[in-house]
């Protein structure tokens, strides 16, 4: 293991967790990410190899497919984000690339994103104040892009109504977290 010590997107050595009202905001760093983009005209071979290596179907637009060790959600035409445990981060992109070969462009994304999970009964009230998503009808295991405080994020519904993950650009982690915290305090003040 190398000598460089990681810090969190919020610039600390340990994770930020705060409980506000009935909501808990948790910084998540133990996931590794890589994006798969299908090469032109590789549809069949791509799908086959993806199924083999990932063990899950690559999901349709707006959908997240959860599995182990790999989960995936759709990020654009012919493009998916693969989510795996952080222990695999050193090799995730390389492993996927060697499995997918020339059917796919693979890009390591682990450090492109910060992630904050929100749990609690008021989670819907919170996101109602944060982003333009019909949060109350959002089904478990769906994911969508949205803007929170002008920051482009992915919103991933883990349990409908009560548990969500927000993936935002890492450099804006502080502003993103601040916006979520302020909104949560506003909800809790009711």
């Amino acid at each position, binding site marked *: 293991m190398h000598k460089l010590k990681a810090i969190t997107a919020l610039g600390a050595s340990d994770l930020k967790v705060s409980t506000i009202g009935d909501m808990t905001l948790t910084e998540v760093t133990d996931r590794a990410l890589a994006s798969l983009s299908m090469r032109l005209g590789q549809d069949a071979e791509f799908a086959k190899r993806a199924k083999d290596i990932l063990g899950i179907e690559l999901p349709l*637009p707006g959908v997240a497919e959860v599995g182990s060790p790999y989960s995936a959600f759709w990020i654009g035409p012919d493009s998916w984000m693969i989510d795996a445990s952080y222990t695999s981060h050193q090799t995730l992109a390389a492993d996927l690339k060697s499995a997918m070969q020339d059917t796919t462009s693979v890009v390591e994304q682990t450090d492109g994103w910060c992630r904050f999970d929100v749990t609690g009964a008021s989670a819907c009230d919170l996101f109602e104040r944060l982003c*333009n998503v019909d949060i109350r009808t959002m089904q478990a295991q769906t994911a969508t*892009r949205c803007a929170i405080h002008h920051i482009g994020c992915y919103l991933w519904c883990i349990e409908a109504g009560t548990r969500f993950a927000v993936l935002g650009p890492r450099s804006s982690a502080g502003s993103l977290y601040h916006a979520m915290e302020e909104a949560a305090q506003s909800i809790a003040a009711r």
Partner: protein
Amino acid sequence: MIINHPLLGPRDAQEFTYLGDAAMIDRPDWQAENAAEAFHDYLYLRDNPAGEHRELWFHEQGDRSWLVVTRNTLTHEITNVELARDVARAQGRGR
């Protein structure tokens, strides 16, 4: 405004960046006789209709698709939304 994304369904237009007339897809041949004139007309002249307008929107805070949206410039009513890539291919653009 709300743009009914062919893949994602209704999305607020605020997630998109606007470019303009879908004729921007029809980039002229750089080796043609009248290339200079053709590029001038392509880049600078517009129909700018008061009514139905085919235009390019980029889903910047979304899936990064370029869309061709058919929208009425008098009422803002949107009657059709297509993936620009499909439109470009249909219009004969390739490599």
